[in-house]
């Protein structure tokens, strides 16, 4: 049984839900939510059924329809079903389901409840599209759709100026990346004559030089797309701002899906990158990881901390791909999806309880008020920090191991970031959950309803076991065939220490250092002690290294200035001088000319005679 239609159903159910909600059930909140949630839950169930039936390695790997074919442009609409996409499918629908269910509780009071679920479903559809795409163009299409649905979700509270601006910023920044992505696709297509991943891979395998001189450039351009979606330096600025959206959205975008799309795409198209391109990718990933971790240390908004943490982890993943270890990147992506979704939903639970207060310095002592949230959050934190045997340890270790093998500087950065991660996460936990109440809102806080806590519990379980359920082997088998991959629970538990002990131990050491630093600084802090200690650096970190300001001063200014200049020329040179000028000159000429008609009869007679004379001269005079 191949169940070939199942993937189609999985893909289109959310779209159907979005359409039905938009067209018919806008007013009926309950039906809307039910539709949207059941679409993704059914999707999850069907995915499980499909994997059960076909395992992660179906016989038929592709099903496709013809979407557009014009001569050499053969654009299919197809689904590629292999381990990579199926695992990703599982993650997206699984984590997505949890977030959808959670949203029911979180968004319950919002008046645009139906719209929210419609957007959420649209987003799910787009994301599934990226996951299952079997060709570049379809991936680009879903890519764009993800962009727009994230625009709709981030700007969900569009009446708030900051939300509307953040949505715009996210979309446009993504578009900058997509610009490169499109060009990359064009280069690849022009050189290899196909868009289909399978055919491209086969083509490149046949003739590795097929991309010619543009190979590195093409790869890097495709990577640009990933930079936008996965918020890699220097296109990372949109992600923290995107926190303006409702928290489930942040969870969905930052945890499992949108930002992961970039890494997923890199893994999917791993075959086109040349070593040079990979090097650039790795360094960009490393820089992002470091930079974001540093910034996260000095943020006070709970969601922003998580946002920068996401950035930092994405940096890890991208670095992994750059280090020619896409399986490690995907592994981390998967585990990260679990614990980061968990963290965001936990943060959402906190925010919900705190009546939309997001400053951690106004929280404190929440562990008693919200035990479920606290403990699940703690699990997430530990997983993120890389505590053995939680999922984060294994995936992060895989990346550190890859770095150990390939590049010492990146390894050092990686370990440093790991320490920073532990530091800022525990800073968050110490300040927000432990200690005394820092504001009276904490007094009113209480645990969230079951629709919100159950997703937390489920995600917490996955955050714990995610590292040892065979994900790594699965990705490894596909993306890194021939390499050794651990099988069996026990083997997986100890694999890191056998495979690359230095990396594993460094990771654990980093955790220790980070925890210790956080404990010393924040366990009993009333206010942040860091600014006093490191001064300027702290300010730089808090102000996100002034990247927004930098863009404001460069990219945006350049565009605005160009637009102003062009507009000026358009208005005055073309519109006024050339167009209306010539009209004006004509009319002026007419006005002058008509004074020949002086009204004087004698002048008329004279002119007539003059005319005759001129004609006589020219016709006969020569």
């Amino acid at each position, binding site marked *: 049984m191949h169940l070939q239609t199942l993937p189609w159903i999985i893909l289109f159910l959310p779209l159907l839900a979005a359409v039905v909600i938009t067209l018919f059930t806008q007013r009926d909140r309950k039906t809307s939510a039910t539709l949207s949630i059941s679409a993704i839950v059914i999707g999850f169930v069907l995915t499980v059924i499909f994997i059960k039936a076909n395992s992660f390695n179906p016989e038929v790997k592709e099903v496709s329809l013809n979407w557009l074919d014009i001569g050499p442009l053969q654009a299919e609409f197809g689904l590629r079903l292999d381990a990579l996409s199926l695992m990703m499918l599982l993650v997206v629908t699984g984590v997505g389901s949890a977030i959808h269910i959670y949203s029911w509780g979180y968004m319950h009071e919002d008046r645009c409840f139906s719209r929210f679920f419609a957007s959420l479903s649209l987003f799910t559809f787009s994301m599934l599209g990226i996951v299952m795409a079997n060709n570049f163009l379809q991936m680009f299409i879903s890519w*764009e759709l993800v962009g727009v649905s994230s625009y709709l979700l981030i700007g969900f509270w*569009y009446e708030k100026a900051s939300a*509307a601006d953040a949505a715009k910023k996210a979309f446009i920044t993504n578009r900058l990346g997509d*610009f490169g992505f499109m060009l990359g696709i064009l280069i690849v297509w022009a050189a290899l004559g196909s868009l289909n991943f399978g055919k491209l891979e086969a083509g490149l395998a046949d003739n590795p030089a097929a991309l010619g001189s543009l190979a590195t450039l093409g790869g890097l351009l495709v990577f640009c797309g990933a930079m936008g979606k996965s918020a890699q330096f220097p296109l990372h600025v949109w992600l923290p701002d995107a926190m303006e959206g409702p928290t489930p959205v942040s969870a969905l975008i930052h945890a499992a899906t949108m930002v992961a799309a970039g890494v997923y795409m890199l893994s999917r198209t791993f075959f086109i990158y040349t070593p040079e391109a990979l090097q650039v990718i790795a360094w960009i990933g490393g820089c992002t990881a470091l930079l974001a971790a540093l910034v996260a240390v000095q943020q006070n908004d709970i969601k922003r901390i998580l946002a920068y943490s996401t950035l930092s982890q994405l940096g890890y993943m991208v670095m992994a791909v750059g280090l020619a270890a896409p399986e490690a990147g995907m592994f981390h992506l998967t585990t990260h999806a679990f614990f980061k979704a968990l963290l965001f939903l936990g943060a959402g639970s906190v925010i919900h309880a705190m009546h939309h207060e997001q400053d951690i310095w106004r929280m404190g002592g929440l562990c008693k008020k919200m035990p479920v949230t606290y403990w699940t959050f703690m699990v997430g934190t530990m997983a993120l920090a890389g505590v053995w045997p939680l999922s984060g340890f294994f995936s992060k270790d895989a990346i550190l191991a890859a770095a150990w093998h390939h590049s010492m500087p990146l390894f050092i950065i990686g370990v440093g970031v790991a320490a920073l991660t532990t530091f800022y996460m525990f800073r968050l936990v110490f300040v927000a959950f432990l200690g005394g109440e820092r504001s009276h809102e904490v007094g009113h806080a209480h645990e969230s309803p079951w629709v919100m806590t159950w997703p937390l519990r489920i995600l917490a379980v996955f955050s714990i076991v995610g590292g040892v359920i065979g994900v790594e082997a699965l990705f490894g088998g596909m993306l890194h065939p021939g390499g050794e991959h651990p099988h069996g629970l026990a083997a997986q538990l100890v694999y890191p220490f056998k495979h690359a002990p230095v990396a594993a131990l460094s990771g654990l050491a980093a955790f220790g250092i980070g925890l210790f630093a956080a404990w010393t600084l924040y366990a009993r802090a009333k206010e942040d002690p860091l600014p006093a200690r490191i001064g300027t650096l702290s300010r730089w970190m808090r102000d996100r290294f002034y990247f927004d300001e930098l863009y404001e001063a460069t990219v945006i200014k350049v565009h605005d200035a160009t*637009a102003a200049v062009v507009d000026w020329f358009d208005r005055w040179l073309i519109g006024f001088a050339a167009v209306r000028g010539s009209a004006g000159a004509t009319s002026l000429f007419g006005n002058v000319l008509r004074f020949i008609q002086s009204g004087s009869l004698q002048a008329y007679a004279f002119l007539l005679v003059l005319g005759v004379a001129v004609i006589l001269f020219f016709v006969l005079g020569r």
Partner: protein
Amino acid sequence: MSILTSILGLPLLAAVGLAFVPRDYRFVMRLVALGATAASALLAVLLFLKFPGAGVNADGYRFVQQIPWVESLGISYYVGVDGINLGLVLMGAIVAFAAACCSWNINMREKEFYVLLLVMSGGILGAFASLDLFFFYFFHELALIPTFIMIGVWGHGERKNLATFQITLYLSIGALIALVGLILLYVQSGANTFSIPALTRHIQENPMAPGSQNLIFPMLLFGFGILVSLWPFHSWAPLGYGSAPTATAMLHAGVLKKFGLYGLIRVALPLMPEAAHGWMQFLAWLCLGNILWCGFTAMRQRDLNLLIGNSSVAHMGFIFLGIASLNLIGVTGAVLVMIAHGFLAALTFGLSGYIRQQTGTLEMSELGGLLRKLPFVGAALVMAAMAGCGLPGFANFAGEVSVFFGAWQNEALRVVMVFAVWGALVIGAVYMLRAVRAVLHGPVADKWNDVSDATNAWRKLPFALLLASLLAFGFFPRLLSEKIKPDAEKIVMMVNAARPLTPALSAAEADSEEAHAAARSRDTATEGN
């Protein structure tokens, strides 16, 4: 009688009929206008559905009808469709109906308005259905003149008068240059016929002299170019559209403007292939003017209609780029964008017209937060903006992406392409989102408390119809592309059968010749598969 004659004749007939309806019978007038355009749109849908099965004549056209008109000059009323104009006729008919629907707020001189609207609709459809150069031009002008008068009489804004004069004179210059070019083509081809198929056949056997080609082609290029607001001849468009009544802007920006592009594809390329090769590199750079220049200008607009007008000019750049690529993908993509942009432009102008009617202004600094008050119209505007910045799912994307692939295939255009993609993906997004941000997002001001959404089904219908068309062709572009492809291929073959004759225009021409050859062989190779 061909179904095409009914499609274009119904609005014209209704216009004549309306002239005899007493002016107090407003309801009757509206009914006649709606009925005629609706019938014409339905017939166009029928035409579209029946197209693959209909009989083809020797020249590859279907649903043809030919009536001799002026024998001594070889003018005949000759209508017919192939893949290239089929979609345009469909799009024109649907937009005409939508425009008629959007005219409910006209409350002075309805009679004249509806007569002109119907004449315009009939003229537009006639221009696209005609296979005779004379009628092709004739119908276009028939549609153009009502545009001017409608802007003058029912237009709005302080600069209405300037807008009317500017658009009239500017477009007339373009139309006349094109006319002179067409007549010259007729004269110098020596075929003594205005029939496009006959002319094409004649020229395939007796190609035009290089001198003639180089004389006529620029005339058509710039004549048609002015009509399509090719940079730098675009400044009529934003102001004109900004001042035009809703229906007029919808019909003109959506449909009538495509006339010049259609003319380039149908007439200029196949009949003057050598000159086409020589000029295309130049055209490609000009179309960057549209995409970037007008995109940047759009970013600076303070009035929503001006912004949309500039963006519509910018979109024309993609169509030109598709044409300039001179290959199957590019030309097919260009036709796709033409159709898609038709729906889109009509939609955006319809929506902005609605907003203006409700708020009395389109100054973006005055507006804001309207999505709360106008959930339907606002959502439609968001979708339109998204379609405008090339979001997949809308027909524009299918077209633009084909244009990109087509233009990229032509190696001479790659530098241009880099900028074009920038314009499409980044600049387009910037100004479109800026408009959404300014008009729909943000807090809603108290003064807009009375603004009401389109609740009535009739009010929603035009927008829903246009959106549905955009989405239908966006999801299933093959509905169009499969029909366009064979005929686009014929044109591309005719163009590429000739060698370029003025390499002076581009240094890269020598390189690109190989590319052409490669592209051609690839074309034919895939054709073989």
